[in-house]
């Protein structure tokens, strides 16, 4: 915390992120607004040192562009210091890694390895329920667009593999000789029908979601929360969220940072997607 306050003092003195501008009584407010990371776009710029202290875009060749000394000082400012906990050693290693003079890491908007999680309100058969939509940026022949890649929806989840054993649910290997007449028994109790699918079968919630919406059983009611998951830095995962509060530590900030290997990355992805639970 002390280090963070020290960083704020240094940054206030150097003017980084804060433009002291005397406009009547709005001085304090405006400084706070300058400090806020106002857009994801600005998060990228601040992470990479691609904007100056006034928020103006820096381009290659401009003083301060991709300046790793500056990044070492400014990166701690884009962490949530009020509600999130960060392991100091991991944070130090992360900042050292991304600002490494020989092999620095900069975030790339079109670099893949990051995606959005949007929690939405829905009405499902007339009852309120939240859904998690996962969106990724897809490159097109011209330009790019955000696309739905996955959905997690608890009412769907509750429908599948509710009975963890399910070992007695199978079509015996001679069923073909009887024209699969035993399918009648499978579909008579449709609550367990998923157990008759192939090994490692996973239901595609996105398709069900789209189907239910087309059938007018599911209605979008609004966006509750947006988060972004980043895997662009080797051996690290971080998440950013938007904070709307008083003070300088505000806007889009890192809310989670973990050091991960490849296995842990897959586990983490499963956790984020609520898969394999």
């Amino acid at each position, binding site marked *: 915390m002390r280090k963070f306050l020290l960083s704020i003092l240094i940054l206030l003195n150097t003017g980084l992120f804060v433009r002291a*501008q005397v*406009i009547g009584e*709005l001085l304090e*407010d*405006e400084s*706070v*607004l*300058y400090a806020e990371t*106002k*857009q994801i*776009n*600005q998060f990228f710029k601040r992470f990479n040192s691609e904007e100056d202290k006034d*928020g103006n*875009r820096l*381009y290659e060749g401009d003083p301060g562009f991709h300046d790793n000394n500056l990044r070492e000082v400014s990166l701690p400012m884009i962490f949530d210091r009020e509600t999130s906990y960060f392991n100091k050693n991991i944070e130090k290693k992360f900042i050292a890694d991304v600002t490494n003079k020989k092999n620095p890491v900069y975030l790339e*908007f079109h670099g893949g390895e990051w995606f959005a999680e949007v929690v939405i*309100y829905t009405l499902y058969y007339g009852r309120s329920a939240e859904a998690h939509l996962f969106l990724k940026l897809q490159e*097109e*022949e*011209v*330009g*790019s*667009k955000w696309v739905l890649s996955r959905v997690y929806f608890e009412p769907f989840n509750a429908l599948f593999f509710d009975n963890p054993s399910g070992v007695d649910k199978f079509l015996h290997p001679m069923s073909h000789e009887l024209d699969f007449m035993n399918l009648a028994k499978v579909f008579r109790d449709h609550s367990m029908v998923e157990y008759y699918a192939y090994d490692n079968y996973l239901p595609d919630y996105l398709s069900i979601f789209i189907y239910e919406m087309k059938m007018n059983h599911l209605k979008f009611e*609004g*966006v*509750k*929360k947006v988060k972004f998951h980043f895997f662009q830095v080797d051996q690290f995962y971080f998440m950013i969220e938007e904070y*709307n*509060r*008083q003070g300088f530590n505000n806007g889009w900030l890192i809310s989670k940072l973990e050091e991960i290997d490849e296995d842990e990355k897959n586990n983490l992805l499963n956790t984020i997607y609520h898969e394999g639970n």
Partner: protein
Amino acid sequence: MKKISIIIFLLGVFQISTFAQDDISPERKLAIDSLAMEKIRDLEKYIAIIGSKETPASEAQRVIERATELFMVDSEMGVSKLGSDKTTNYPVREYFQRLMALNYDKVTISWFNIQYISDLEKMPDGRWVGVITIYQRFEGTTKEGLKYKDTTKKDITVYVERKQTQISGRTIGFWDVLLGDVRVAETKK
């Protein structure tokens, strides 16, 4: 004003007759930013006029028309309040109508001298899109003298399109800017 700004743009910045425009140079980006900011300043001015209780209703309606013309058809304002997780979307015209009808005796709308202009990203239809963030201070006073104040952050979608027109037989390319959906979030400032 719109015509003048386009003409200035045509004559002063881009006397270009080609459409091969895959990337936007930093210089061009700055010029597009200033055109977009001109629209935003117009919007700020219109909002202040529409919200002011000193504006006669007929004048406010006329300004609502002008303000609506800044936007793409079907643009919406998504409004969220502190203490509520819900966002309510209004078509822009309805948002302006509601602003005009606010039940205060005196309304002052001012703007912070700060904005953040994002990069422009190309869309699959060939147009470009960006977001400009601005902050608004609202102060309303009721007949009884009760004061309400808030500061809202407005994230405004900006669509940028390369167009062409014929002037004296020559094909001239120019950049056209239209506003799109706006996220209006009350802040704790």
